[in-house]
């Protein structure tokens, strides 16, 4: 029942996605081809994974600007482990753990240091990017050599049950996040904190623990996205992930989650990420000139948010 209600509350953004897909399909016949749709899904999966982590954070009325830097750092770490001859069994957990730890540090700074999430994660964004530059000396780290490099590359290029692996991973993450947010006490507490943090604290919810956890989750999922991106390129760029926080936040907001916290959900974020992914794909298919692309993207996002706001106030 909750799933249906969630879906109905997100239906405005879903409607937006359907309209966008219809318009694009009419404008170019190439869009609805299976290969293209799989491309869109694969390209969207990175942003979707990051945005799902971001949903937890934004639901608590927080924000995580450091996702791009965590993505890049975890990816670079994974690439160097692969190049050094390590197997996937060691590389993936270590890279994920890095993201989890970095996210937790942001969370601790925010809860115990009482630093505004915007500032704390902005600092992480800068410091971690700097750390990555030092670690990589500003040059890409190659992940195409080493015994596990083919298996690693398969994470980005491979297929499972006819779907690209990044898409499968995104769907699994979606399922887990949805269960956590809607079926567990933890999820309920996340919403409660976003609704009114003081009331939540007074009702006995361990706000510090929950808040730290959501940033840890955001870090973990950013690291996962970083691993997949690095696998897809077989290389970790020092510039990877720059600006990804904006696309992730846009996906969350377009999907119906409020930046003020307490309202929204994972399903909306997935729809939001798809809207952005479809848009990026359409701009290329339609050969829209580079100078107009940013205007087009910004306008569609604004439109999607306005439509959603209309729906909510009714």
């Amino acid at each position, binding site marked *: 029942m909750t799933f249906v209600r969630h879906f109905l509350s997100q239906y405005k953004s879903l409607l937006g996605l359907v309209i966008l897909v219809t318009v694009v399909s009419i404008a170019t016949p190439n869009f609805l081809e299976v290969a293209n749709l799989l*491309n869109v899904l694969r390209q969207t999966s990175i942003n979707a994974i990051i945005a799902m982590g971001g949903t937890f954070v934004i639901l608590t009325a927080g924000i995580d600007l450091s996702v791009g830097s965590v993505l890049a750092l975890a990816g670079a770490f994974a690439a160097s482990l692969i190049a050094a001859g390590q197997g996937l069994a060691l590389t993936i957990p270590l890279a994920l753990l890095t993201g989890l730890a970095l996210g937790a540090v942001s969370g601790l700074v925010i809860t115990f240091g009482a630093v505004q999430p915007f500032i704390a994660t902005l600092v992480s964004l800068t410091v971690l990017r700097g750390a990555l530059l030092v670690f990589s000396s500003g*040059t890409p780290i190659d992940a195409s050599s080493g015994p596990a490099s083919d298996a690693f590359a398969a994470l980005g290029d491979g297929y499972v049950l006819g779907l690209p692996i990044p898409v499968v991973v995104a769907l699994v993450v979606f399922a887990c996040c949805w269960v956590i947010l809607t079926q567990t006490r933890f999820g309920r507490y996340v919403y409660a904190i976003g609704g009114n943090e003081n009331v939540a604290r007074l009702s006995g919810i361990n706000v510090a623990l929950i808040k730290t956890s959501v940033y840890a989750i955001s870090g973990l999922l950013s690291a996962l996205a970083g691993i997949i991106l690095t696998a897809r390129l077989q290389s970790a*760029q020092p510039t990877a992930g720059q600006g990804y926080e904006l696309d992730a936040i846009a996906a969350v907001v377009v999907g119906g989650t409020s930046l003020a916290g307490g309202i929204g959900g994972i399903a909306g974020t997935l729809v939001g990420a798809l809207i952005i992914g479809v848009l990026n794909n359409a701009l*290329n298919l339609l050969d829209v000139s580079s100078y107009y692309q940013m205007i087009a993207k910004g306008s569609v996002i604004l439109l999607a948010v306005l439509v959603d706001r209309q729906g909510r106030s009714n």
Partner: protein
Amino acid sequence: MTRRLLAMILAGVLVAASAGMAAAADKIALVISTLNNPFFVALSNGAKAKAKELGYDLVVLDSENDPAKELSNVEDVLDQNVKAVLLNPVDSDTAKAAIRAATLNQVPVLTLDRSAKGVKVASHIASDNVAGGVLAGNLIVQQLKGSGNVVELEGQPGTDAARERSQGFRQAIAAASGIKLVASQPANFDRTQGLNVMENLLQAHPDIDAVFAANDEMALGAIKAIKAAQSKILVVGFDGTPDGVAAVKSGALFATVAQQPTLIGSLGVETADKVIKGQTVPASIPVPLSVVTRASLGAGTP
């Protein structure tokens, strides 16, 4: 007698001290757009090496692709009494303020790799991006024997490099009537975007014969997409970064138009030295580009 001796010793010490102070190195500053890119890292290293050789103390500041940061970097180095500023502008239109600040302080400015519009500098040292684009275009026309469909992956909209390389490329292919530019999309000099955009373009245009990417990073991303689609498409990149050259050697990338960033940095310091010493220098110093192919690397045919 003792007083004279003392005076002589004091004079001697003073002469030695002032000689010691004069031997302290002169400072030059390199304000670079970003160190987040192997091209600029190489430029900076070239400058550092030359500075060491000529006996200058080189201060390197990173503008992080932000014109405001660039302005404050220049103001900071002017406080440090530098003898010259080597500026690699973040954006050709916004460097005016920084350069004016330096000129007001009588510190000569030389621009590296990107020019500054609307203001005069002591010298401009850069690769000729238009000529590079022409080289790439001609190479593709030659390889396709004058007819075929080509796609262009553009760099970051608004930058000189993107604009000029595209200009040169289009100039070259316009001359060949059988070559059709079926699509031209920006991938912002980024490898991931090169991959995603190429994937999308392969969907829209199933019959692409060649791709020109305005830098090696985008070219390498495009190559991944082409490999996944199991197509055979000729790819030409730009920059000659280590990863790009490695890809040419392995046969994945057909060619790259190599800039010589180390030489740009080195020439920058050399020219600054001449300006500081009061010698005349040319207003613009074009740094030669070269096309890197498997043949030119001596690697033989794949």
